[in-house]
C-alpha cells in the first residue's frame, strides 16, 4: 500500500498549480491575460478618484524562449490613485490581497489578477517585478523590486528605493518579464484595447507593441460615470460564511443592532419585523448564536419577503450618453441606439444592464452580428458562445425587427454589478441567471424596436430616392422618343412633371 502524504498549500501555490482557471492557459492567452489584468487595475485606480485614466502599455521583446514563444517585458503606467508604500509588497506579491473586497462595482474583485500576471512572469522568467508608485501630493515615489514566495504566499522584497516626487506625480508603474506568444495573441490584444476604449470613452489608452507599432485610443470626453458608493451586503445575498465573519467582527451585542448596522436596506422597523418573523429575540447576543442558528438565520433572511430590493447606488453604469459616445468613437456607425435598464437584482446582488445596437459605418458585415460583451466596463473576449447575452441574442426573433444577419449590425451588452455572475475567475463569460437574462432580453427588445424604426425609415428614404431616380431616368426618354416619333423639334418640358413627383413624394403610388 502506497503511502499517502498530506500537505497544506498556500493560496499562491494553489493558483500557481491551477493557473488555467485565472486565464493563464497557454503562452498566447497568458500574454493577453497579463496585459488585461494590469490595464484593469490601472482603470480602477484612476476611476476611484474620478480622474480620466491615462494608461500607457508597452510590450517589448527581450529574447527568444522557444520556437514560438519569446520573453517579453511588459510595462504598464497609469495616473491612478497609487498604492500606499506599506501595501505595495502585499498588493503585488501576495495572492488574495487587495482593496476591492468591498461591496461596490469595480473591475477587480478577487485580489488575484495582478499577482497572477506577476506570478506567471516569475515562473517563466525567474525575474523580479518592479513596482513604482506614488499616491501623489506631497508623497514620495517608492520603487520596489519584488518576487513572490509561492509556497508561503508572501512577497520577497529584493530592493526598495524612495525618490523625491518633484512633479507631484501620482500613479503606478508595473514592469516585469514574462514568456508568451505575442503574434498569436495580437488580434485579441488589439481587440481588447479597442473594446476597452469603447466602454471607457473617457480614457486615453496607448499601446506600443514589440514591433514598435503604436496604437492610440484617445478619449472623446472627460465626463466619467459617478464612482460607485460602497454598500453593505443585502440580506438576500448573504451566506453562512459571511454571517460568521460578521459575527466575529461585530461591535454590536444584540441582534437588532447587528441587523440594522451590517445589512443593506435594513432599518429599525424592518429589523424588528424580521426578528419577529424569524422568531429571534431582538436582544439576543450575536456571538451566542449556535452554528445551527446561523444556518437558520441565513435561511430566514432569504425567506423574508419584506426587505426592500438593493439600492443601485453601489453601481456605476456607464450611462446612455457615454455608452453612445464610446460606440460612436470606435465604430463610427450610421445609426446607434443605446438603452439603460432600471436597476434589478439577482440573489441579493444589484445589477444594471446597458445595451446598444449600432448599424453601418465601420461595423463589419460578417454574415452574423458582431457582439460586444462587457461586464463592469471590462470587455469579455473569450467563450462567447457560452455567454448569457449571446444566448439571449440567438433566441430573439430578429426578423420582427427587420434585422438580418447579413446587415452590418453590432450589439453591445454591458452588465454592471457588485457581483458579476462570472463562470470563472478568468472573467470570460457571464452565467445564465434568469433575472439577468430577462433584463438583457428586455433591454435588447427596446433597442431592437428603435433599430426597426430606423431601418423602416431608411427603407422608406431609399425607396423614395429610387422612385425619383426611376422618374428622372425615364421621363426624359419618353419625351425624347415621342418628340422624334411625332416629328417635333422641341422636346416637352419634363421638369414640371418631375417636380410634381417630388411634391407628392412620400405618398407612394
Amino acid at each position, binding site marked *: 500500500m502506497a503511502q499517502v502524504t498530506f500537505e497544506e498549500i498556500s493560496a499562491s501555490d494553489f493558483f500557481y498549480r491551477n493557473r488555467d482557471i485565472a486565464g493563464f492557459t497557454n503562452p498566447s492567452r497568458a500574454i493577453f491575460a497579463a496585459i488585461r489584468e494590469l490595464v484593469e487595475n490601472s482603470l480602477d485606480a484612476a476611476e476611484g478618484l474620478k480622474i480620466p485614466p491615462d494608461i500607457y502599455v508597452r510590450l517589448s521583446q527581450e529574447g527568444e524562449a522557444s520556437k514560438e514563444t519569446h520573453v517579453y517585458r511588459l510595462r504598464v503606467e497609469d495616473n491612478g490613485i497609487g498604492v500606499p508604500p506599506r501595501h505595495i509588497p502585499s498588493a503585488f506579491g501576495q495572492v488574495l490581497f487587495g482593496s476591492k473586497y468591498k461591496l461596490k462595482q469595480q473591475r477587480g474583485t478577487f485580489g488575484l489578477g495582478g499577482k497572477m500576471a506577476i506570478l506567471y512572469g516569475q515562473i517563466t522568467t525567474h525575474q523580479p517585478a518592479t513596482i513604482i508608485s506614488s499616491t501623489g501630493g506631497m508623497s514620495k515615489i517608492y520603487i520596489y523590486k519584488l518576487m513572490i514566495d509561492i509556497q508561503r504566499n508572501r512577497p520577497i522584497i529584493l530592493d526598495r528605493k524612495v525618490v523625491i516626487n518633484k512633479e507631484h506625480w501620482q500613479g503606478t508603474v508595473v514592469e516585469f518579464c514574462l514568456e508568451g506568444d505575442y503574434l498569436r495573441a495580437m488580434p485579441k490584444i488589439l481587440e481588447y484595447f479597442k473594446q476597452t476604449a469603447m466602454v471607457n470613452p473617457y480614457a486615453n489608452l496607448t499601446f506600443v507593441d514589440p514591433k514598435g507599432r503604436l496604437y492610440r485610443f484617445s478619449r472623446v470626453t472627460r465626463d466619467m460615470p459617478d464612482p460607485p458608493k460602497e454598500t453593505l451586503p443585502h440580506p438576500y445575498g448573504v451566506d453562512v460564511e459571511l454571517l460568521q465573519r460578521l459575527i466575529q467582527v461585530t461591535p454590536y451585542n444584540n441582534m437588532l443592532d447587528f441587523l440594522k448596522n451590517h445589512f443593506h436596506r435594513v432599518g429599525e422597523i424592518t429589523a424588528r419585523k424580521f426578528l419577529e418573523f424569524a422568531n429571534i429575540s431582538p436582544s439576543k447576543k450575536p456571538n451566542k448564536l449556535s452554528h445551527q442558528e446561523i444556518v437558520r438565520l441565513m435561511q430566514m433572511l432569504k425567506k423574508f419577503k419584506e426587505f426592500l430590493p438593493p439600492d443601485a447606488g453601489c453601481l456605476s453604469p456607464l450611462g446612455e450618453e457615454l455608452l453612445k459616445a464610446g460606440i460612436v468613437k470606435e465604430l463610427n456607425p450610421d445609426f446607434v441606439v443605446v438603452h439603460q435598464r432600471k436597476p434589478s437584482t439577482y440573489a441579493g446582488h444589484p445589477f444594471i444592464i446597458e445595451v446598444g445596437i449600432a448599424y453601418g459605418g465601420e461595423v463589419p458585415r460578417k454574415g452574423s452580428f458582431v457582439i460586444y460583451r462587457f461586464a463592469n466596463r471590462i470587455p469579455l473576449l473569450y467563450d462567447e458562445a457560452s455567454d448569457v447575452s449571446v444566448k439571449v441574442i440567438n433566441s430573439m426573433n430578429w426578423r420582427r425587427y427587420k434585422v438580418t444577419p447579413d446587415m452590418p449590425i453590432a450589439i453591445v451588452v454591458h452588465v454592471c454589478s457588485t457581483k458579476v455572475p462570472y463562470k470563472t475567475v478568468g472573467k470570460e463569460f457571464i452565467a445564465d441567471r434568469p433575472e439577468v437574462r430577462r433584463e438583457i432580453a428586455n433591454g435588447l427588445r427596446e433597442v431592437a424596436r428603435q433599430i426597426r424604426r430606423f431601418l423602416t425609415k431608411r427603407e422608406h428614404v431609399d425607396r423614395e430616392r429610387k422612385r425619383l431616380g*426611376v422618374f428622372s431616368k*425615364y421621363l426624359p*426618354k419618353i419625351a425624347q422618343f*415621342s418628340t422624334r*416619333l*411625332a416629328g417635333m423639334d422641341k422636346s416637352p418640358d419634363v421638369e414640371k*412633371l418631375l417636380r410634381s413627383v417630388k411634391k407628392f413624394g412620400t405618398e407612394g403610388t
Partner: protein
Amino acid sequence: MGRKERKTSVIEKKKEVTVSLENLGLKIYEQMDKGYFPSIEMPSRSTENIYYDPNFRQFILGDRKVRRTARNIRHIKPFTQLVWAAFFSHELTTQRKTSTLRDVYYSAQAYEMTFKDQQESNNIITDLETILGFSREDFNIFPEERSAVFGDLTIEYTVPGYEGKTLNLTSHPDGVLIGPALTSSEFIETTADKVIAIEKGGLFTRFIEESVHKKFNAILVLTAGQAPRATRHFIRRLNKELNLPVYIFTDGDPWGMHIAMVIISGSANAAHLRELTTPDAKWSGVWATDIVNYKLPTDPLDEVDVKRLYELQRDPRYKDPLWQREIKTFLKIKRKAEQEAFSRYGLTYIVDEYLPAKLKETK
C-alpha cells in the same frame, strides 16, 4: 385583280403603319407638352379578356382595357420601352430596314433602353401590336424561325433594291424561305389550285422530289413545326388573295393537330391580331382514324400527350365533330404516329395512295 392595284395596297398599308406610329408619338408628345403624365389605353390581353369568337373563328380580345401611365412607378419603364419600340419601328419602316425580335432586344441598348430579357422586349412589341392593331411584321420585325414555300407561284418583290423583280417559287429545289422579302411581295400569278402545308422538313423535301406540286397542282408550304406568324399570314394570303384551298398534313398526335389548328383558328397569344388565320383550311392528316385504317406503326401516347388531348377536348376551337372524334380516337387507341410512318409501305406510298385519298376526303 390587276397588278398595279395590288402593289398600291402594299404601299398603302406601309403608309398606314407609319402614320399610326407617328400618331401614337404625337398623342404622347401632346400630353406631356400640356404638362400631363402621358398615358395610353389598350385592350387587356389577360386570359379573362380572351374569347373565342365563332364568327371570326379565332380568339379575340374582349372590351376590357388597361391603362399604362407614366405617373405610375410600375408602368413608367414599360411605358418608356413602348415609346421606344414605336420609335424604333418607325425608323425601321421609314428606312425600309427589317429586324428580328432578337435584334430589337439588342438595338434597345444603343438607346440606353434596357430590357431585362428577350421575353420583356417581346412583350413590349406585342403591346405595340395591340395598341395599333398591326402585327410586328408590319413594323418590319420578323421572326427568327423560318419556314419555306415551293410551287408554281410568281411573286414580285417590294423590298428596296428588288422592287419590280419577279421570282417563280419553283426556282430553287429546296424551296424559298418565307422571310421579310417574300412576305412583303405581291402575288403575280399561279397555276396551282391548292396549298399543301407540311409540318416536317423531311416530308416537304420528299414531296418536292416526288413532284407533288405538279402531280397535285399544289403550292407546298413547310411550316417547320408550329408555323411562325409570318407563315400563317402567308398561308392566309394564298387562301384569300388567290382563292386556293389549304390542306394541312401533320404528325398524328395532339401536337400535330394543334399545329393545324393554329393555322386555321390562330392562337390565344395573337388574340389582339387579325389576318393570321385561315378558317377554311383543312387538317387532312395524320388523323387518329388514319392510324387505325392504314395500320401505321405507332408509339404509345405518353402522359403529356394524354393531358394535352384532354385540354384540347375542352378548347372551343375543337368543338367540331371531326376534331372531337379524332381526340376521342387518340384517347381510345392510346397511340400516335409520325408522318414518316407511311414509309413502311414504301417511300412513295404516301404520295401515291395516302395523299390523294386524304385530299379527296377533306375537300
